[in-house]
């Protein structure tokens, strides 16, 4: 069988498929949920005021991320 060089159409479709595989809702939603949970723990923990100071940014990133990734395909 002769070696066939990938055509531009092949490359484009495989990269689209790759992107589709990366941007799936489940794992990203889970990551965003973990970030929100982590932020809430940072907000209420009694150990370090530095963690408390960064809690809101963590929750905000998690929440905005959650809104974005919930539009990803299943």
């Amino acid at each position: 069988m002769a070696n066939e060089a990938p055509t531009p159409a092949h490359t484009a479709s495989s990269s689209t498929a790759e992107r589709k595989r990366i941007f799936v809702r489940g794992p990203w939603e889970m990551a965003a949920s973990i970030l929100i949970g982590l932020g809430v723990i940072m907000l209420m923990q009694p150990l370090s005021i530095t963690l408390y100071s960064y809690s809101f940014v963590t929750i905000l990133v998690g929440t905005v991320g959650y809104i974005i990734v919930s539009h990803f395909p299943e």
Partner: protein
Amino acid sequence: MSNNNITKDTPGLRGLSDKSLAWLFITPTIILLLAINIFPLIWTIYLSFTDYRSNQPGREIEWVGLENYRDVLTSPDVWGYMQTTASFVISTMLIQVAIGFALAMFINKNFKGNSLLTTIILIPMMLSPAVVGTFWTYLYQPQTGVFSYIIDFFADVGPLDMIGSVDLAPWAIVIVDTWMWTPYIMLLCLAGLRSIPEYLYEAAEIDRANALQKFWYITLPRILPFLMLAVLFRGIENFKMFDMVVSLTSGGPGSITELASINLKREAFENWKTGYSSAFATILFVTVFGLGSIYVKALNKVKS
């Protein structure tokens, strides 16, 4: 012509199309939602970047950027109120889940008076938190309160000042919240228990599984999503708890029961730091919104 087309093409009330009629019904709700929810939310976010004080309406509003957020997120006092809130949320959730689950297991058994008992258990949940807070202040009175009398009768510890004592006041609010909201956890657990098919237990019976094994391998995994849902819902509710605690202790004695929401109200309407309290409110809102997103996800999982 199909039925569907007839419905689509038939003019509705007074010559209006069905679509126009639908908009007519929805528009007042949308306007109300925008006026009561969305506009104040956007306005609060705007004010959180200013030094606005609502008791000085004539004063020029100055844009301060992220200063209010920095003040809230570096304040050891606010950090302390967050920890008070966390203690309240965690202790109430643990106790309520334990009692609620046990009650659900008990109610799930068939016995005489089961329905009546369920109704009686559900009564506290149907009351207003402000009313509950107010009448529990009477029950907690050290000299005349029934609660103090019962504890003294059984433990002989003398009159208990549940609301006035620094050590007991946090427990006073935990007890009232548990009394009020355990039935909710029980209801959710009961729904979970009743959704478990009987044949699973019959199969386990044939396999000679004992009661503990049946609980561990059948009941617990099946009820876990419901428990998670209950914990998440109560967690969100207790995170923004206000009315019941205000009518019970008003955050006292000192600031031992001052939850984040109570401090927010103090800053906004007693110290009139509107910009600062708007930033504080935005932080709490984003937190509740984030938790709410997880809650919806968990709810969908339970549904499926």
